[in-house]
């Protein structure tokens, strides 16, 4: 049974004046550039990709294996294959950008004072870039230390 769509009430959509993020009523105005549209698409595209990468990662590392067997040697063996390094790099990039974009949305929704918004966004981007760099660095440059272990 289809729901009858009621006629839409007439709403005047306030577009943003330059630099302003809110209308006087506190509602977010309709964005004037395409960035938020791309962000919206990015959430969905990266989300669908993360179904494979994040859920795959959980299944491999937490169901098929588990934290009892994960140690240095396990990671060294895994990263011996460039395929898994690539997998982890893609996962790192997608999960981090998807999450950062989410928090960016939260900041625009909840932090209304301009000063705090600039502060929290700067903190977010700095932290995000830092973790992206150290994460990518270890995945790309990792060289296994040969451990002398009698088995």
């Amino acid at each position, binding site marked *: 049974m289809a*729901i009858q769509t009621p006629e839409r009430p007439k709403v005047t959509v306030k577009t943003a004046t330059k630099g302003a993020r809110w209308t006087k009523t506190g509602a977010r105005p309709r964005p004037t550039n395409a960035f938020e549209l791309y962000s919206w698409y990015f959430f969905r595209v990266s*989300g669908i990709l993360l*179904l494979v990468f994040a859920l795959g990662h959980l299944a491999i590392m937490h169901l098929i294996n588990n934290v009892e067997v994960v140690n240095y040697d396990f990671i060294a063996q895994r990263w011996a294959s460039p395929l898994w390094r690539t997998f982890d790099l893609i996962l790192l990039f997608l999960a981090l950008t998807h*999450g950062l974009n989410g928090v960016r949305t939260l900041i625009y929704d909840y932090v209304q004072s301009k000063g705090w918004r600039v502060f929290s966004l700067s903190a977010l981007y700095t932290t995000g870039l830092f973790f992206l760099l150290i*994460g990518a660095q270890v995945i790309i440059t990792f060289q296994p230390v040969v451990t002398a272990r009698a088995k």
Partner: protein
Amino acid sequence: MYRGQSGMWLWVLHRLTGVGILAFLFLHIADTYLVGLGPSYYNDLVFLYKHWAFRFLEWLLVGAVLYHAINGMRVIALDFWESAINQHKQLYYGTLGLFFVLWIPAGIFMLKDVKWFV
């Protein structure tokens, strides 16, 4: 289906699980960074994750990711198929149903060998 109804609480949970997953992701990148420093650093820290309390948190994390993933699919369905709104109740129960069907067995499987409170 909004304000105080089903969709709102799924939306609230989506935001909460999203923030929680990102917070863990930061921690997880930091611990993986130790792999680059050598076996002693990494193995000393990963020892923590084997604690029963962390095993339980790990299950909660899997739940957060599962919920975020399944609810995300519901959102995408509502966004891209105009007729999906007619099935929003089924989508609501489907989301919760699929979540528990996957999360509970995953928990039994993940936590079966955990030695609690030691």
